[in-house]
C-alpha cells in the first residue's frame, strides 16, 4: 500500500516537474502573460490606427481637389468633368432631402410599430411580429434596390403621373413624372430600409421603461395610450431620438438602393420627381469612369463630406443612446 501511494505520488510530482517556477532573477509577471498582453493591446491599438488611417486616406485622396476648390466645393453647383469643375451642393441637398423625407415617413411608422409591439401585443405574440421586422433590417441593400427598381418604381411612376396630372400646379409635383426614379422613389426605398432599424432599437428602448411607472398611471384610471404618451414616451424620449438619428445616419450613407432608383442626375432639385444623385450614388456611379486625378480626387472629396456628415450623426446617436442606457445596450446596425 505504501509502495502504491509512493509510486502514484512519484508520478504526480513528475507531472508537476514540467511546471517551471520563475527564478528569482527573472521578471515578476510571467512571460506568457506579458506577451499575451502586448499582442492583445496591439490589436486594440490597431483598431484605433485603422480609424485614423481611414480619415487620413480620405484627406490625402481628396487633397488635390481640396487644394483646387477649397470650401467653395461645398457651395458650388457645377459638376463638369470636361471643364474640370467640381462641386457638391446639389448632391448634398439630394442626400439630405431624400434622407429627411425618408425619416419623416419612417419615424411615425417605426415608433408606432415599436409602441404597438411593446405595449399592445401579448408577450407570446411579440417575437412573431418583431422577428420578421428585425429580419428586414438584415437584408442587403442590393436586394432592396432590386425590388425597388423592378417592383416599386413602376408603381411610383403611375402615382407620379397621376399626381402631376391633377396637382401639377404644386411645386412638389411639378417635375418629370414619367421617369419613376427620382427623389420620391429614393426617399421611399430609404424609408422602407430604415424603418426596421429604428423599430428594433426603439422596441428595446421602450422595453426598459419601468413597468411600475406605467402601471401607476393605469391605476389612476388613464387609458393605455395616455399612459404611454404621458409616461413611457417622455421616459424613453432620449433613446428614441437616438434611434431616429441612427436611422437618419443609415439613410444618408446608403448607396446601392439609392443608386438604382434615386436618379442619376446632377442638378438642384425643385420637385419630388426630379432625379438627383446622393453623394453615395454619385461616387458609386462615376468612380470607375473618372479618368484623371482631379476627377478622382473630387469624388473622394465628396466621400469625405459624406463621411463627415454621417460621423457627426453617428456620434450624436451614440451619445444619446449611451446616455439613456449607460452603455448597457450594445448597438449593432
Amino acid at each position, binding site marked *: 500500500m505504501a509502495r502504491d501511494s*509512493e509510486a*502514484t505520488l512519484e508520478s*504526480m510530482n513528475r507531472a*508537476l516537474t514540467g*511546471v517551471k*517556477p520563475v527564478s528569482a532573477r527573472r521578471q515578476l509577471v*510571467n512571460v506568457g502573460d506579458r506577451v499575451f498582453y502586448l499582442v492583445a493591446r496591439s490589436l486594440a491599438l490597431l483598431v484605433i490606427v485603422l480609424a485614423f488611417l481611414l480619415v487620413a486616406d480620405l484627406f490625402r485622396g481628396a487633397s488635390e481637389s481640396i487644394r483646387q476648390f477649397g470650401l467653395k466645393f461645398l457651395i458650388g453647383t457645377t459638376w463638369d468633368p470636361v471643364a474640370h469643375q467640381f462641386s457638391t451642393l446639389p448632391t448634398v441637398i439630394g442626400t439630405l432631402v431624400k434622407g429627411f423625407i425618408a425619416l419623416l415617413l419612417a419615424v411615425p411608422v417605426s415608433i408606432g410599430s415599436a409602441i404597438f409591439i411593446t405595449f399592445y401585443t401579448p408577450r407570446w405574440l411579440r417575437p412573431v411580429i418583431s422577428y420578421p421586422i428585425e429580419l428586414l433590417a438584415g437584408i442587403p441593400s442590393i436586394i432592396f434596390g432590386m425590388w425597388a427598381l423592378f417592383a416599386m418604381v413602376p408603381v411610383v411612376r403611375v402615382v407620379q403621373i397621376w399626381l402631376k396630372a391633377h396637382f401639377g400646379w404644386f411645386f412638389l409635383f411639378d417635375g418629370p413624372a414619367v421617369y419613376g426614379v427620382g427623389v420620391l422613389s429614393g426617399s421611399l426605398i430609404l424609408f422602407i430600409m430604415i424603418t426596421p432599424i429604428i423599430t428594433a432599437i426603439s422596441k428595446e428602448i421602450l422595453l426598459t421603461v419601468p413597468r411600475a411607472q406605467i402601471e401607476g398611471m393605469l391605476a389612476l384610471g388613464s387609458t393605455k395610450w395616455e399612459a404611454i404618451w404621458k409616461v413611457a414616451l417622455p421616459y424613453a424620449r432620449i433613446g428614441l431620438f437616438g434611434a431616429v438619428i441612427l436611422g437618419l445616419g443609415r439613410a444618408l450613407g446608403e448607396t446601392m438602393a439609392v443608386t438604382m432608383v434615386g436618379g442619376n442626375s446632377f442638378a438642384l432639385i425643385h420637385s419630388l420627381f426630379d432625379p438627383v444623385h446622393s453623394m453615395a450614388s454619385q461616387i458609386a456611379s462615376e468612380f470607375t469612369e473618372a479618368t484623371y486625378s482631379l476627377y478622382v480626387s473630387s469624388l473622394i472629396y465628396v466621400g469625405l463630406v459624406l463621411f463627415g456628415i454621417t460621423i457627426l450623426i453617428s456620434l450624436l446617436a451614440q451619445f444619446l443612446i449611451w446616455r439613456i442606457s449607460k452603455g448597457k445596450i450594445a448597438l449593432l446596425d
Partner: protein
Amino acid sequence: MNSETYAMNDLKDRKLAVALGKASEAASADNGVRMRVEDLSVYYGKVEAVKNVTMSIGTQKVTALIGPSGCGKSTFIRCLNRMHELTPGARVEGTVLLDDQNLYGSDVDPVDVRRRVGMVFQKPNPFPNMSVRDNVIAGFKLSGIRDRKILDEVVEKSLRGAALWDEVKDNLQKSGASLSGGQQQRLCIARALAVSPEVLLMDEPCSALDPIATAKIEELIHELKEQVTIVIVTHNMQQAARVSDFTSFFYLGELVEFGETGKLFTAPEKRQTEDYITGRFG
C-alpha cells in the same frame, strides 16, 4: 534555506513530503507554523479594510476566521494567495510568509504563490465547458501537461481526497456543471487538491449548500487537514467550533483575538469576542 531563491528542489521535496502524508517532516523545519502574517494592512483605494493584522497559521491545523459581515476576514484570506490584488485599486502592505518566504516579495510570481496556496470559493465554480475529469485536472491541463496515465492517477487521488470518487467514478465525462451543489463544491475541492497545495484556503465554502452537503464537507475538512493546512472563513460560529483547531475573531478590519478554538469559544479574553460569540451583535 535561502529565502531569496525559489528553487525547484525545494518545491518538489516539499510537495512530496506533504503528499506522502509526511507533513510533519516538512513542518518540523517550520516549528509547526506553516504561514505567518505580519503587520498586514489592506486598502481598497483609500479605505483600509484590514488593519495591521499579525497572526500564525499552524501546519496541518484548521484555522477559522470568524466575525460579522464586512469585518475584513474575506479580504484577509484573499491576501494569503494574492487574489486580493486582482481587484482594481487594491493595495497590500506588510508581509505574508509561507515557510519563511515572503509571498509579497518583489521577485515572487503570484502565479506560483497560487499554486502553493489553493482556494475554494463560496459559490461552487466548476468550469462548465469541462467534464468532471477535466475539471479536476484543470490545473494540469491548462499548464500543458498531457500524460494520460499520470492525469488519470491524479483524478482518482484527488476525487478520493475530496470524498467524491465513489459518486462520480462512472460519470467522469459528464459536465462539471451537472452535479448537485454539494458535489460541485467537492469537485472544486478536488480540483484545488490536485495541484498539491501546501495550504488550502476556504472562503465560506458551505454557505451556498444545504445542511447535508455542509456536513459532508465539514467531515471532509477533518480528513483533509492531515494533508494540507486549512484556513477557513465562516460566518457560522458553530461551524468554526466544529471544524477548527484555532480561531481568529475579526472585527472592523482588526484581529481582535486569536487562540485555540476550544478556549476562544468558552473563555474568550476580549469583551468584543464574548459579545460576538454570545450573539449580542452579529
